[in-house]
């Protein structure tokens, strides 16, 4: 269990981040959470993304879910939408790949080309 002090500290951090981001358009991460995605490990992928965002104290990213997009063999699938850029879709995203994609693509705007399955 977290102590009350810890919770209070986390709360203050979150509030500070919320104030910072008010205004600008957000980066969006879409995780495939259809049956095929979940069966392939999407819960762990989503968990790793949330953990990486929390660890880096990134609050201005919107994480959403989508259903099956018909590429079940590529699941777990995630897509990153940066404001003003095309959508980049990654396939077979394990926990480790998810962390790397957050660090490289979301934080540093560097697309991880070898894992991309579609851009539009």
């Amino acid at each position, binding site marked *: *269990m977290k102590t009350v002090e810890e919770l209070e500290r*986390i*709360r203050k951090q979150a509030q500070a981040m919320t104030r910072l981001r008010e205004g600008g358009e957000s980066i969006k991460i879409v995780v495939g959470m*259809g049956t095929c995605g*979940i*069966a392939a490990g999407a819960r762990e992928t989503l968990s790793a993304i949330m953990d990486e965002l*929390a660890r880096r104290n990134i609050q201005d990213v919107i994480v959403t*879910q989508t*259903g099956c997009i018909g590429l079940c063999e590529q699941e777990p699938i995630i897509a990153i939408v940066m404001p003003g850029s095309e959508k980049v879709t990654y396939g077979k995203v394990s926990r480790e790949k998810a962390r790397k994609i957050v660090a490289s693509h979301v934080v540093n705007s560097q697309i991880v080309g070898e894992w991309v399955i579609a851009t539009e």
Partner: protein
Amino acid sequence: MRELSLHILDIAQNSIEAGANTVEITVDEDESSDLLTIRVADDGCGIPEEILKHITDPFATSRRTRRVGLGIPLFSEAARVAGGDLEIQSGSGQGTEIKATFKISNIDRAPLGDMAETMALLIVCNPHVDFKYEHSRGKTRFRCSTGMLAKILGGMSIGSPSAVPVIRNVIREGLKHVQMT
């Protein structure tokens, strides 16, 4: 699916896509009757009768509509092989209630798995949905809801990534007192 908690995540995704405002998830481990009961009930748009008729048949339903795919047939099969059953009650505009039972002692029953992880991600990634989770075993019971967890978080947004570990811990600690499977 390796864990029943993954089926629950999958079925709850249907509720979210059905536009539910409230999703109730209950898990009851009743050792006296050797039955594990999982119930997911929502106030979403419901399932039209003609689709409901074939809902547990993977071949009849998978191509007809994207919202209803293999999730329910797989959950139904997981219950059936474990000596249980799946019931579904729904109708257009009536919400949906899915109840699956499993023989706890059945060797083919999948483990319940990480309910704290499933619930924490559902709650944080769908902050506009009010989740109510109840887990009981015999006389012991753990309950939480989006509203209750929001209070614990104080001013921290329930949709913030930092809320995941907090909620996960609250549920994990709570479940220590009830869970067996």
